[in-house]
């Protein structure tokens, strides 16, 4: 099955990102295609490389990065949501005159059209959040 995943909540505060990660990993291991993981609302906070959890805790951001490296996953942060919450890549830093970036590797910032496109292309859109 061809799947799209949407993550609506930030890491640690809420289980949504954990559940989405475990679902995505399991789906890939079962041989399903995950067309895209789209991060929206506070979900964009899953895409900052500056996250530093305690050493004895899971690293939610790195976990997504490693999964993306292994399976060539498309991890997309909504641009409008990311701008509001201070998630910045090179392009956004230049466009908005910011003095730093914080986006994690394998993530990219793009528009809401990427979510709509994923919903159209896929057999299922699976939403994680409250």
């Amino acid at each position, binding site marked *: 099955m061809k799947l799209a995943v*949407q993550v*609506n909540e930030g890491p640690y505060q809420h289980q949504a990102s954990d559940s989405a990660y475990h679902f995505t990993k399991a789906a890939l291991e079962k041989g399903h295609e995950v067309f895209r993981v789209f991060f*929206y*609302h506070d979900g964009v906070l899953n895409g900052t490389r500056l996250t530093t959890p305690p050493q004895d805790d899971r690293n939610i951001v790195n976990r997504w990065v490693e999964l993306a490296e292994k399976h060539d996953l498309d991890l997309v942060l909504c641009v*409008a*949501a990311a701008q*509001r919450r201070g998630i910045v890549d090179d392009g956004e830093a230049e466009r908005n005159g910011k003095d730093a970036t914080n986006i994690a590797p394998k993530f990219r910032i793009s*528009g*809401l*059209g990427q*979510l*709509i*496109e994923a*919903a*159209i*292309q896929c057999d299922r*859109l699976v*939403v994680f*959040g409250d």
Partner: protein
Amino acid sequence: MSDVKKFMYLNRRAPYGTIYAWESLEVVLIGAAFDQEVSLMFIDDGVYQLVKGSDTSESDMKNFTPTYRTLGDYGVRHMYVDKESLEARGLTTDDLIEVEWEDWETEESVDNIVEAVDAGQIAELLAESDVVFSF
């Protein structure tokens, strides 16, 4: 690209306590460019998103209620409201904004696409949707 899909946006939260309602509306507005068959559903505190006469001037929040009135122009064909959620909050459809819809090509028009539905209808509408965005 596959055929036109039935999109359902499920709005469950009050308009200003969290950002979900506004960011859901942003998806609807952007999604209009993709020419899908779009419906919105308002349940639980989500019904407050359509209450008319809202005034946010003292809370420093942008009042986006007027944007819902324009959704007919963004290809939204149905705006369903859960009857039970309205009743539980002492509201009726008279308390809600009206949203016009018109097909510019056929000139077919509907005066108000906001419609109260019961739990059974909601279950059917969700079941027949191809995609459910839940906010």
